[in-house]
């Protein structure tokens, strides 16, 4: 059978067989292509590829369900620990995330001044919150200095 384009390798071999059975008489070695007619459509049966496709979707759906379950578990664990976290933040009095401990001006961005670059090292730029391209509304900016 020719490969790479001939419809002889196309799907619907069952349909092809049916068509052959009806005596289309295309000659030996020439399989008829999938002929889309109402009758053929009615006799359509899902083929191997379609079943494999549905199986692949099922596998992805299963993985997605695993992810949803994992997310739910993580949320449950986080909810159970939320009181402790809130107590810690209440106790310390500072809510900023401890993501950058190596620079003072970014450890507690909410407590840092809004416009003071070069606090730690020469030529280090102030990324937060002056890193924003658009500033806050003028009255608010005045109020917060």
């Amino acid at each position, binding site marked *: 059978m020719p490969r790479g384009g001939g419809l002889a390798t196309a799907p619907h071999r069952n349909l092809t067989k049916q068509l052959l059975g009806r005596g289309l008489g295309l000659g030996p070695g020439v399989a008829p292509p999938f002929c889309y007619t109402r009758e053929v459509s009615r006799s359509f049966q899902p083929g191997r590829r379609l079943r494999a496709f549905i199986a692949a979707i099922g596998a992805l759906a299963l993985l997605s369900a695993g992810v949803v379950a994992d997310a739910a578990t993580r949320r449950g664990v986080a909810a159970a620990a939320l009181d402790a976290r809130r107590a810690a933040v209440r106790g310390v009095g*500072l809510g900023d995330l401890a993501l950058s401990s190596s620079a003072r001006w970014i450890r507690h961005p909410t407590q840092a001044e809004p416009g003071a670059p070069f606090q730690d090292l020469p030529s280090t730029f102030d990324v937060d919150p002056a890193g*924003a391209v658009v500033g806050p509304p003028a009255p608010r900016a005045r109020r917060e200095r």
Partner: protein
Amino acid sequence: MRRQWALLEHALGSLRRRAWRHVALAVAVALVVGVYGSALLLADALRGEWRSTLASVPDLVVQRLEGGRPALVEVAALAEVVPLDAPGVRSAEARVWGYLFVEALGANVTVVGGERPLDGALAAGRAPRAGAERPECVVGVALADHFAVRPGDRLAVPDARGELVLLEVVGVFVAASALQTADVLVTDDATARRLLALPEGRATDYAVTLSRPEEAPVIAGQVRARMSDARVIERDALVRTYELTFDGRSGLLSALLVPCLAVLLLLVWERLSGLGEAERREIGVLKAVGWETRDVLTARLWESAIVAVGGAWVGALAAYAHVFWLDAVGLRGALFGWSALHPPLELTPVIDPTAAWTLLGVVVVPFVGASIVPAWRAASIDVDEAIR
């Protein structure tokens, strides 16, 4: 319906015949969705972490500016600036806190002084007591791990003047609060002042808790009227700062990915618009045996949709696995920046439906859209010319 099943099966056959081309496209889609998705998931999760504890931070923080920079405030002036009997004020305190650079760590430790209410916040031990024989402290998990200390151990920390201060570790914060307390050291007022070289009678700022948080702008105005050099930080300013921080960083990362998306769409257009000889003959034969243009178009769209949706689906799952199972390796550096003392990253998934739909709209819709015109051109091909 049966017609669509038949066309879908034909599309699957077509995908299989040109498997490598379509696998390459699906991998490209998965890669773009995966990287975009990771950035969004990580930023949303961090935003969620911060928002979840927002209610516990003080409603107002009053700083004093000197020469345009935060300066120390007078402890004695607290009653004058924030009278406790003022309507709406529940509590006010002069806080002693600051940063201590510890050379051994290459990082700043956040030192917090005073008698802090730490009930329920500690995994082990108790809160430090003032007047103990040896100064006591509570440390965050990252600090405890770095110094390899547990409650009952002793810790020598150089103060701001370089002299060693011997502290007794009496407690460690719960690991769940690591994102907030990883580098925090809580100790009594006198020891904190010594560590930070903070003079008596002075404090870092005033923290004010209100009975009704919505009255914050009014109280803030009163504080400004009583203290002309005050800078009052309201809670909504904190929210905005964080939104700016995360939106800015994740936005920057996303902006860097725009060229990748453009390249992907260009690739899609290029790959799908070039009809090979075999494909041309195939379409010609299909039309010769009675397929309509609409059927050919639908089959081609099925092909594109399978590649785009399949790739995006795999990419989204990979993004989740990357952020929550692999701790966003590679990406956390870009989003957090360098730091010597990172907390262990145990994030809670927060999935923003708008972001998910945006991602789908940015990748899948243009992908299928970019394949429509080539599909139409392929479908409207002249039978006679195609077969010949």
